């Protein structure tokens, strides 16, 4: 497991935690046949984690929790939900009114999706800032991106299940994107719908897939965590760590820090669930789906708004759809587009500036995605879309060659006087 210098130093006795030595007879019996205890102990107790991780690193644990919450609430909601065009909206309302704590389950699930996306965006921006996708963690990044793509599809499918006006019209707009594909576009759309319009077959397959994809997310997340446990976590300094003194044991150090971070996040989450549960939704989604009435504005959920702005900033439909997919696909090439050998933006002053500009551009695109595509909004969308792509395709490759980076510390304890060896 430790054949390169960059992997976690597990073959050395780091002295971080006890070896796994079960005494309990039942555990011993199990351990001989399936050493799951040893595996869990190695990965979540003794696992060496960099001692200098900051709170941005707690979002990995937060995301695991959110995935769990979404699956548990989702399974219970599915027990009461009816995926039929005539009953879907009313079955959601029955959950809200007549199921014991149904309102809680539904609000946790609906706001949980937003929290999940909020956490994943923080997690992704953190990766970019600290260069976590760079060698040897390219696969960690790409597997994470697959999780994100599955989340995007799952989130969209789930929003449609409510079968309100915005659900119906979001389904219509998004599935119609595929009609931009030359020649076979219309056939693809008919195939996606299972008919000649968004209808009952569409809703039923969306429900089926909305139940399936989260378990695929679980699978890919396991690979993602596995990959990061092989390569080892990056750290805010972005430098290689010394085998012994730069690590702490995952438990209790990372565990308690993650728990604290998660508790803070849960307060934020609870604020939305209990006090402003409809803040992130659209009021039109409390109107039952009506194919005969088009809403005054069709806007996606907030977490898709930047991509929606990119789509609409291109005047040609096909090129707009290509820009939309390219805006996500470009992320897969990040480990190779970034030519800098220095990982952390802490030591890349110029990159840090471009990074924060990129964050502002993403927020700006999100704001523009909720605005009508006219006048100044279109112009701004085009400027920000250009910067979005330029950040990956121009800034990242070029900066690595020209940027003067700050001197890297010899070790993570260097900046602390008298602490180094």
């Amino acid at each position, binding site marked *: 497991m430790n054949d390169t210098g960059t992997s976690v130093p597990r073959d050395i006795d780091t002295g971080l935690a006890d070896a796994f030595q079960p005494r309990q007879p039942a555990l011993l019996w199990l351990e001989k046949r399936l050493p799951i205890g040893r595996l869990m102990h190695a990965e979540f107790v003794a696992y060496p984690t960099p001692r200098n991780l900051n709170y941005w690193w707690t979002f990995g644990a937060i995301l695991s929790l959110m995935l769990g919450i979404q699956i548990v609430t989702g399974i219970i909601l599915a027990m009461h939900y009816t995926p039929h065009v005539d009953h879907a909206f009313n079955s959601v309302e029955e959950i809200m*009114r007549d199921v014991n704590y149904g*309102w809680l389950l539904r609000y946790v699930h609906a706001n949980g999706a937003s929290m999940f996306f909020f956490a994943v965006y923080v997690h992704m921006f953190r990766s970019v800032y600290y260069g976590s996708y760079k060698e040897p963690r390219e696969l960690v990044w790409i597997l994470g991106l697959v999780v994100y793509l599955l989340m995007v599809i799952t989130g969209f499918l789930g929003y449609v299940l409510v079968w309100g006006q915005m659900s119906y019209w979001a389904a219509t707009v998004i599935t119609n994107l595929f009609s931009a594909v030359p020649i076979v576009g219309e056939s693809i759309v008919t195939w996606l719908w299972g008919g000649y319009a968004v209808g009952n077959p569409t809703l039923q397959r969306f429900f089926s897939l909305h139940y399936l994809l989260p378990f695929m997310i679980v699978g890919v997340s396991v690979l993602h965590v596995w990959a990061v446990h092989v390569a080892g976590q990056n750290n805010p300094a972005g430098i290689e760590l010394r085998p012994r003194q730069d690590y702490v044991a995952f438990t209790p150090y990372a565990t308690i820090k993650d728990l*604290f971070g998660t508790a803070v996040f849960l307060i934020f989450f609870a604020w939305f669930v209990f006090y402003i549960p409809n803040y992130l939704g659209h*009021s039109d989604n409390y109107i039952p789906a009506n194919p005969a009435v088009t809403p005054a504005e069709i806007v996606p959920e907030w977490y898709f708004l930047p991509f929606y702005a990119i789509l609409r900033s291109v005047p040609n439909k096909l090129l707009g759809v290509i820009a939309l997919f390219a805006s996500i696909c470009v992320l897969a090439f990040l480990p190779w587009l970034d030519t800098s050998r220095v990982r952390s933006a802490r030591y890349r002053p110029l990159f840090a500036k471009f990074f924060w500009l990129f964050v502002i551009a993403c927020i700006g695109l999100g704001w523009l995605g909720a605005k009508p595509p006219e006048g100044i909004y279109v112009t701004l969308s085009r400027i920000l879309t250009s910067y979005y792509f330029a950040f990956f395709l121009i800034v990242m490759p070029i900066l690595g060659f020209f940027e003067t980076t700050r001197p890297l510390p010899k070790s993570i304890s260097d900046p602390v006087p008298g602490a180094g060896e």
Partner: protein
Amino acid sequence: MRNEPTIAIAALAGIFAALTATTVQGREASSSPPRVQWSFSGPLGKYDPGQLQRGFKIYKEVCSGCHSLNLVAIRTLADPGGPAFSTAQVATLASEYGIKDIDGSGEPIERAGRPGDRFPSPFSNETAARAANGGVAPPDMSTLAKARSYPRGFPWFLLDMITQYQEHGPDYIAALLTGYADAPAGFEAPPGRYYNRYFPGNTIGMAPPLHPGQVTYDDDAPPTLEQYSKDIAAFLMWTAEPHLVERKRIGLQVIVFLIVLMGLLYLTKRRVWAAVQNQLPLQPPARRAQ
């Protein structure tokens, strides 16, 4: 036009310039509803049972002539956190409704309502509702208070997150009901439509439904249009969100619990990490000799 608040976004790094928002796409300018002081706003908000009972009376005597309330069961009028009718009152109320049903031989009948029934619709089907109302069916009122809103604009929509402003729907409904007026000079409402300051596009198909003195209150609330509008808006918030009081009560408990938990976890974290911060040898607290 002060109807849309000025939108300004941070002009960081020269990307953004300060902007003035125009109007929401596809809608003509309509005024922002004034904010009403609701008893159910904020973290400790509760419905005022008296207000909900008055609102129910307006629904029963006025609104229910055209609007359905399909998702609301009559029994919920006695649920905790709601209008606080007694179960006996609810049974009497229910029996006043005629419910379409079939008898033992399958013949269609109309029987007296029971608390478990939903409020019956004024029209037998949607086509009848459309035909009787100039081609547009009056919307069902079950979720109406959550299905209506108005744009808040920057930066108010962000502040609403902190101030917990969630009453866009009832504010809009209360404003709409008081918003009928003579059309300004040069503005011609199409036949069969009425000028309203707050309705998007300013012409609404619903004739002014409420007039002062129209509904006789059983308590000493004034029988004014303003009072009627607030009471029915509050009642519709209850029909849209019947578990609001329970939600806010549990929310306070959850958040207090989480703050305590967060504090304890923080202290534990500091204690666990003390060795690391002090650069002491890194060993787990209970390391056994190997």
